[in-house]
């Protein structure tokens, strides 16, 4: 049987994302985010939908955490923490459901985007999210963005990571 998490990890790293495996405990998560964003002057968190408040509650105590950011703070924050709706093994993509407060902003505006991905939400291929039987068919109903690595361009000659979107993408794979 294919290990979807391992395939995801390999392909995400090939797409220039960083993947850290992380225990699914408040302490471990806080430690991992704190380490990844240790130099960040502003950290913004979008409300999770699947992971539950107790797991992420510890993040609110991190240095630099901005509880209710205004647009000015969003434009100048350094790190955004976003929950993934799903992960895709074959491409190493994370899929983020848009619409809830701050999801677009945290996954797009800050130089560092930290994605929280629950291991059981990894599917084999992108097209699986268009199957009505996959993840209760939610993939067909939501506004979604598949994110595969940090924003990039080859328009300036060589491939450069970090254009209009995040320069670094870290996926915390919650086991």
């Amino acid at each position, binding site marked *: 049987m294919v290990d979807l998490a391992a395939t995801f990890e390999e392909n995400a790293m090939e797409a220039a994302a960083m993947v850290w495996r992380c225990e699914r405990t408040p302490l471990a998560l806080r430690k991992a985010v704190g380490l990844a964003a240790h130099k960040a002057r502003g950290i913004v968190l979008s409300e999770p939908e699947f992971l539950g408040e107790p797991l992420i509650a510890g993040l609110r105590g991190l240095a630099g955490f901005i509880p209710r950011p205004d647009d*000015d703070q969003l434009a100048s924050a350094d790190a955004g923490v976003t929950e993934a709706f799903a992960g895709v093994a074959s491409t190493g993509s994370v899929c983020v459901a848009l619409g809830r407060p701050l999801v*677009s902003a945290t996954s797009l505006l800050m130089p560092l985007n930290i994605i929280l991905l629950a291991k059981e939400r990894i599917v084999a291929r992108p097209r699986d999210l268009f199957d009505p039987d996959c993840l209760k068919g939610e993939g067909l109903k939501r*506004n979604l*963005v598949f994110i595969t690595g940090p924003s990039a361009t*080859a*328009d300036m000659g060589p491939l450069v990571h970090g*254009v*209009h979107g995040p320069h670094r993408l870290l996926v915390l794979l919650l086991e």
Partner: protein
Amino acid sequence: MTESEQKPAGRSVSVDLPRDVANKSDKDRLLRAIRMSLDIESATVRTNTQLFNRGRYRAVAEFPDYDALKDQARRIKETSIANLPELIQALKSSVRGHGGHVFVASTAEDACRYILDVCHWRAAKMVVKGKSITSEEIHLNPVLEGDGIEVVESDLAEFILQLADEQPSHFLAPAVHYSRERITALFKRKFKTDLPLDSGEELTRFARERLRDKFLYADVGVTGANLIAADTGTLMLVESEGNIRLASFLPPVHIAIAGVEKIIATRQEMAPFLDLLSASAVGQRMAVYTSFLSPPLTDPAFALPGKPIKPREFHLVLIDNGRMRMRDDPVFRETLYCIRCSACLNSCANFQTVGGHAFGGECYSGGIGGSWEAGTSKIENARFSELCTGCTRCVNQCPVRIDIPWLNENLGDQLNRIEERTPLGDALGSLTGAAAEDRSAPISKMFFGNYHYFAKWGTRFASISNAFAGSGEAPSADADTKDEKVGTTRTLMERWLGVDHRRALPEFPKQTLVQAARRMEAPSSRGRETKVVLFADVFTNYGMAKRGLATIEVLRALGADVVVSESVPEGRAALSQGMIATAKQHARRATTELDSHVSDGRDIVVVEPSSLSMFRRDLHHLVDSRERFERFRSRTFEPVEYVVRMLAKSGRTPQQVFDISKSKVGYRLFFHPHCQQKTIGCAEPTVELLSALGFDLVTSNVECCGMAGSFGYKKDFYDLSMAVGADLFGQVVQQDRNGGARQLIASGTSCTEQLHAGFERTVLHPIELLASLLEVQESTAKLEEEDKELESDLASVKRGRKELSKS
């Protein structure tokens, strides 16, 4: 010598800018654009497109169900275009149901007017745009800027082009022709900065810093859409930089512009495109961002201090601008299946060499670009489609299986028909039997499209024709004038027929394949169950008879009963010149000639791959029914492909029939398969058989050698053809460096000519090599003797001519 005399032929003195030659409704601008691209843009375009192309091969190879995915995508597009009026209505309801607005614009002007109105209603001062080729098509920027609105292109490639005032040269990477060094120079010039900007990172940072505030303060964001689902109003938006996400998220007003062909029925149907689009485009498993949005978004609009809070608003502007007319056209409807992935651009050898500033118009480029330009503007603007040589390398790369060469042959047909008829054209048409509809085609096309006629007469008087046309000879370098160098006949051929004087012409043989085959002693057909008719295609019959004879020899040695057909054109030459009515006539002649053989249970073997490809691929456009096409398609084979079949059928190993120790050319081979041969999947048997025999075989991996039938002979395209050929020449040289020269092997007539142009070395067809490994090679030996006689005849005629001209 004056300055103009020192210039290489065909070069212009001044350097054109891309905008000067964007519109190629006249031929002169097309030729100037080719010159400009070869001089300035070629190296960067080649590097980038070949990188994309290699990535695409790698990425699609990872799909175990690639063909099934393509079939699924094709079906979805076919159904969507068939149901387009209903889907437009459904989409309107979906978008309006979310609180969005939909406007269907009949023309580019209508679309621009609506967008301008939206900007006026919202008092917009600044519009930030994501990449949208359709917005280029409708010329949106000048309309908005003319009204005092600042337009900011945020895709970095479009940002470069906006600074440089150039049109895109590629669907997906609009500034594919810009090297890092040229971008540095452009930024320094335009921004008057002393910053170093000597790396991609520095340039990107510089551009990002200038653009971020624009996003934050823009009043309107404009994007395109890759696909739109009618059932949910969902836009599929694919990008790498994040600018499309910003443009659709930050400003309060989002306007999406899309051609109506982007609509499909359901969001679920977007699934196969999710896999196909990124892989086909630049060889990524997935683009960095692929969004599925049903706007307007529910997140509150972004508002920095000092910027008023406005409610979100979404406008979908659907563009017709000729698309519904294309939908009604049985041929050009296929264009609407295009998902603008650019696989056809990146896999095209000509495009790889000059890019979209030469092989493209004001907006669209590449093989598919001509149909878009013609469909959304006028047929004259598709003149650049002449750079499609019909090599067919794009055909298998298109994720929705569009027959792009057929579209371009039809554009060629339409362009021929708007030419004025001339008495000379009429006379040539009547002489050659070209269809009446095709007689307005330029003389050069009449010549190449009816090559069988000229070849037939040329061969009847082979010695004289060869001597006068200088066939088989490269022009002399030690003569003073062009006339002396190339002879008056070649000068006249260049002037009247467009045949470039720098190309050596193939020699007409003393006897054709048909004549020589009749003189061969045929073994008794008793007991020979495998029956074959060798189709005497025009190129083999009048130019490469030895290849045909070698085929007969090998197949007979394997136990086949082989007969040779009459030599009739099958339509390839006419089709390549856009003379479709004539091609249909020729296809009818060839199929009629072969009918009785097929009824007699014979398989058809065709030596020249472009002729073979007619039977296997193109014929269905030219004959009356699918059944008739199938009758020939399923029975037609390439010589080595057929040898491999016969070996498998008889259970013999290659070594039992062919003895590699007999090879007179050593064991090191360089094989260049013909482009169309690769497309129809019959190059592999040659590789497999020669490798199995023990040859050390290297195979070229260029898409096309640049000769592409008549293309490389044309004076207008000689330079481009040789520039394309440089990749192949480079591969040969590279291989020669490692252990000495390899014997060149090529299956196509024109590939052989191109290799001759590069190396002046013997080039063998694989079947000739195989024939030399048989026990008896009687007939080829005979022909070689006769060739020697012909050469001596030629030499004496030339001596006579020289003496005559001296006196």
